[in-house]
């Protein structure tokens, strides 16, 4: 299977949240049933953040202008990194890359350790305390395997979300960025082409990465460091075992003499053993 990607074009997004709800619909994710469990977020962004039952939200941010504002939207969900920190961090192999680039948590294997939660530079995976499992977008791997678009993409009214061959999506994104620049959006740029080995969610950020809340040059950071300990540990342990084995081999026939002490003379005598 060729590598595929979702492309999000912020300049076409109307923040209707169709994707946000379609994600819940398809993935059968509940929302609370009682008013006390909802909070006022002081923004159109609601819920405030991703959760184990919300794998995609639209982020809203505002910048004041003389007439109107710049209202910047961003699709907040998993980027499906090529160098996926979560996958590296997962101690039980529950997170895997699919051939098309989707990064998927196998819920049967997940043990809820939250190492992926800790490692993700985008703060995407979310742990559910009751289930003791971690959840995130899986790019609707069931749908894409059957030749369909992810639920968020197929429901997008304005084609702000598209899905297809990753190279093709990058091509569209490049084309769109030059269109936007020509139309006066000087800060328009692509996100996801090379970040973390290449993301499988490509973003056209028409007002620039910062305006849309994207992390410029994201790093895996510590995850990589402590992943590095694994081979180090293996080498260290291997070297120790080898060294001790050598020591054992060399001293295998060693016979120690019988020591005794005479307090009176304060002398230690050794009787060799045959």
């Amino acid at each position, binding site marked *: 299977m060729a590598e595929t990607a979702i492309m999000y074009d912020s300049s076409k997004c109307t923040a209707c949240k169709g994707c946000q709800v379609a994600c819940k619909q398809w993935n059968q994710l509940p929302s609370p049933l009682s008013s006390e469990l909802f909070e006022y977020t002081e923004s159109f962004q609601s819920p405030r953040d991703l959760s184990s039952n919300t794998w995609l939200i639209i982020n809203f941010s505002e910048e004041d202008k003389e007439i109107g504002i710049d209202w910047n939207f961003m699709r907040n969900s998993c980027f499906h990194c090529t160098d996926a920190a979560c996958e590296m961090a997962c101690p039980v*192999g529950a997170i895997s890359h699919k051939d098309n680039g989707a990064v998927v948590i196998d819920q049967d294997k997940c043990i809820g350790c939250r190492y992926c939660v800790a490692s993700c530079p985008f703060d995407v995976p979310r742990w559910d305390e009751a289930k003791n499992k971690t959840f995130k977008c899986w790019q609707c791997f069931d749908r894409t395997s059957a030749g369909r678009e992810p639920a968020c993409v197929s429901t997008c009214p304005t084609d702000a979300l598209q899905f297809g061959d990753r190279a093709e999506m990058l091509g569209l994104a490049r084309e769109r960025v030059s269109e936007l620049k020509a139309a006066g959006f000087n800060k328009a740029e692509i996100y996801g082409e090379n970040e973390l080995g290449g993301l499988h969610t490509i973003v056209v950020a028409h007002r620039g990465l910062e305006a849309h809340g994207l992390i410029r040059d994201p790093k895996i950071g510590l995850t990589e460091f402590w992943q590095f300990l694994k081979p180090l540990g293996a080498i260290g342990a291997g070297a120790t075992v080898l060294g001790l084995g050598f020591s054992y081999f060399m001293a295998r026939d060693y016979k120690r003499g019988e020591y005794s002490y005479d307090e009176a003379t304060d002398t230690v005598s050794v009787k060799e053993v045959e």
Partner: protein
Amino acid sequence: MNLSRRGFFKLTGASFAAGALAELFGPSNAFAADEVPEMRIAGATESTSICCYCGVGCGMVLSVKDGELINLEGDPDHPINRGALCSKGNAQFNIRNVYDPETGELMLNPARVTKVKYRAPKATEWEEVEWDWAITEIAKRVKATRDANYTAVDENGVTVNRCEAIGNLGGAALDGEEGYVVQKLARALGVTWIEHQARI
């Protein structure tokens, strides 16, 4: 050679004999086979409908298994929405079913009214009643009101055949045929106070 780090890990991993040690050098791809999950709507009965919210008239496809709605999404063949739906459109599923936040199980939206209810004068709560009783009682009330407040001929001698004491509100959420029948029924009662959402 353009190897991503992931590819690199794979290669170095593969160069070791299979076994736990290899795992220390990379993520666990070797143990996560690309199993293709079956779509949960496989084998469901599908039918089409039109969204109940705004006037765009988006098409949608509903999937039903064992007599219960299990999925609702935009109709990809529909020339207006081509598979798209907004947040409300997608949430139409919730009009009937929700997922229990505790168990994740599919269940009927607890806010749906599924029983006939009656509120007596001065009562503080509803009581549940039978359909037949309610229809009969409603018809009796309509008849009493109509018979007591009927104008057959107005002050100018014009036959007007109207009853000004009954109002009929609503209809924008009904199907066209229902709307036709509801206003037909109202007019046959002599009702002149017929209004719906288009006015407001």
